[in-house]
């Protein structure tokens, strides 16, 4: 009798322990909350993510989100395809499209920060050396032909696409300039010492170099330009948590419309998430976000075309959107 009791007790213990063990992210932790790993690049571009996290919108959907910092979105795309992370919130690059073309299982499900097109209040700008402008060597964007322009991540990064759209308005393309990979903090010094003629930084780096007199903005991305967004790993996209996660993001995006983006509460959240000073965030122009964070198919196609024209792909045709874009989540966001 005693031996039977011990055997049953031991079996029950093993079963209970096995049930309690999850096998990683995207699984239910205690039967009611799903753990999700999100790779992100800390930036105000992805404000809905931080607002949703800080205000408990993910928790409201019974989701426990773990944010993992990465240097570039491309670093996490293979991780999403293999299930090491569930979601990537970052810039889109040529690497993403190459990965999709190769057959990696990732889906673009949403957009993030969208350019305003306002030349007086754009979060990204083509900053040109003040010295070159004052000397008359560069008066218009077209004068940048053949010049070195600093772009974080090089021509194949999201910044490369932004540069290309600004150049195209002046009849140039990214192939007509020499895009040099430089990190944002190094751009001001590079312009100052003449290593590059211009750069494509985001705020607050734009504001800083303008205030120090090193550079002046010559162009901004047209309104509606977007090269960032939300990527789901294929497995996560098929999971039950995919829609609730997106719902939480869209809910946060709804609170970032117009002047509501810069409430004290939001600025505090973004300052903590990105490590930037609140005073700086108060000054810099923000991006805009669609309330439903819908993926922008035309922008994704245009971005591919930029990289195709620059010869950055092994393939030579635009990838059909249905191959890698899912609009259902944004359409169903409630």
């Amino acid at each position: 009798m005693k031996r039977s009791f011990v055997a049953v007790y031991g079996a029950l213990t093993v079963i209970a322990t096995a049930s309690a063990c999850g096998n990683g992210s995207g699984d239910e932790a205690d039967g009611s909350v799903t753990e999700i790993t999100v790779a992100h690049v800390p930036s105000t571009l992805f404000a809905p993510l931080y607002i949703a996290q800080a205000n408990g919108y993910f928790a409201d959907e019974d989701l426990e989100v773990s944010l993992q910092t990465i240097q570039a979105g491309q670093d996490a795309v293979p991780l999403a395809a293999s299930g090491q992370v569930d979601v990537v919130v970052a810039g889109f690059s040529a690497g993403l499209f190459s990965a999709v073309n190769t057959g990696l299982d990732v889906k673009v499900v949403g957009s993030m920060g969208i350019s305003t097109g306002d030349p007086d209040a754009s979060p990204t700008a083509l900053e040109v050396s003040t010295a070159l402008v004052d000397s008359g060597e560069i008066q218009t964007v077209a004068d940048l032909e053949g010049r070195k322009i600093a772009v974080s991540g090089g021509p194949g990064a999201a910044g490369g696409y932004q540069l290309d759209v600004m150049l195209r308005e002046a009849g140039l393309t990214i192939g007509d300039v020499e895009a040099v990979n430089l990190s944002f903090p190094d751009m001001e010094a590079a312009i100052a010492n003449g290593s590059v003629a211009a750069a494509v930084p985001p705020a607050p780096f734009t504001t800083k170099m303008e205030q120090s007199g090193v550079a002046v903005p010559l162009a901004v991305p047209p309104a509606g330009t977007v090269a960032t967004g939300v990527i789901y790993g294929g497995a996560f996209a098929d999971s039950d948590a995919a829609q609730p996660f997106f719902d939480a993001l869209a809910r946060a995006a709804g609170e970032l419309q117009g002047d509501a983006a810069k409430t004290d509460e939001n600025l505090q959240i973004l300052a903590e998430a990105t490590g930037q000073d609140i005073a700086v965030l108060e000054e810099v122009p923000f991006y805009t976000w669609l309330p439903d964070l819908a993926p922008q198919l035309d922008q994704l196609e245009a971005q591919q075309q930029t990289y195709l024209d620059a010869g950055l792909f092994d393939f030579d045709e635009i990838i059909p959107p249905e191959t890698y874009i899912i609009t259902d989540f944004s359409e169903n966001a409630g």
Partner: protein
Amino acid sequence: MTARVETPTVDERQRQRTEVAATREMTKARRLRRRDLALAILTPVLLLVAWQIAADTELIDRQLFSPPSQTLSRGAEMVASGELATHVFATVARLLVGYSLGAVLGIIVGLAMGTWRPLNAALGPTFSALYALPKIAILPLLLLIFGLTETPKILAVMITIFFVLQINTLSGIRQIDAGIIEASRAYGATGLRQFRFVIIPAALPSIFTGLRVAAGLGVIVITAVEFVASNNGLGFLIWNSWQLFQPERMFVGLITVSILGALLTFSVTGTEYLAIPWRRADRPARRRRTEKKR
């Protein structure tokens, strides 16, 4: 009539036994060298074969870990188009300049610190602290000062190599047996003569150890520098290929960097063989066949 058979003398018997033993040792040494060579070649070949099989049987994701066959094919394309050569030359040029300058300066400073105590006292602690600083961490400062030119990249390599050679040269001098120094003085070798004929030769093994270590480190540093501040070079090829999600090109870059490091180390080893002939004394000497004395 029976032919007279000469009985070998004791000395001849000894010489014959010595020859047999020496021949046995040489044969054994030759066999071991052939075995070592076979192992050195077979090991990477077997690893590549295992990698290929793992990719073909989908044990590993071939989209992320391109199989050797695909990598070799892409490498051949890059060689034929001249693209690989462009990157190789860019890296090798930076590496050789930085390595040469760093090595020469490091050896000179190491020799000076090893022979002049006040200099060692003044610079030793500072150099120990600076040695630990990751040179890639000071690259932004170098870019700030010198701009986007070749100078920061070469300097990053040069500084890395300098400290390795300075430390190894100093160590080489310190480990010289005091008895050798005394003996050299007794034979009249002082000042520059002692430096040239005793100290430098005694420190050479340690210096060449430093050169070998520095060769690998130099390749690591230049590759890392080219990740962040270059539009060409093997480091750029590796980084940019991953950013564009072209893993085959990335593996071509990785393999080329490895080969470059091995070639540089091999060159240093070869130079060491020529520069330190007295280290060859412990190897089995080549023997000429001697005629049997009748």
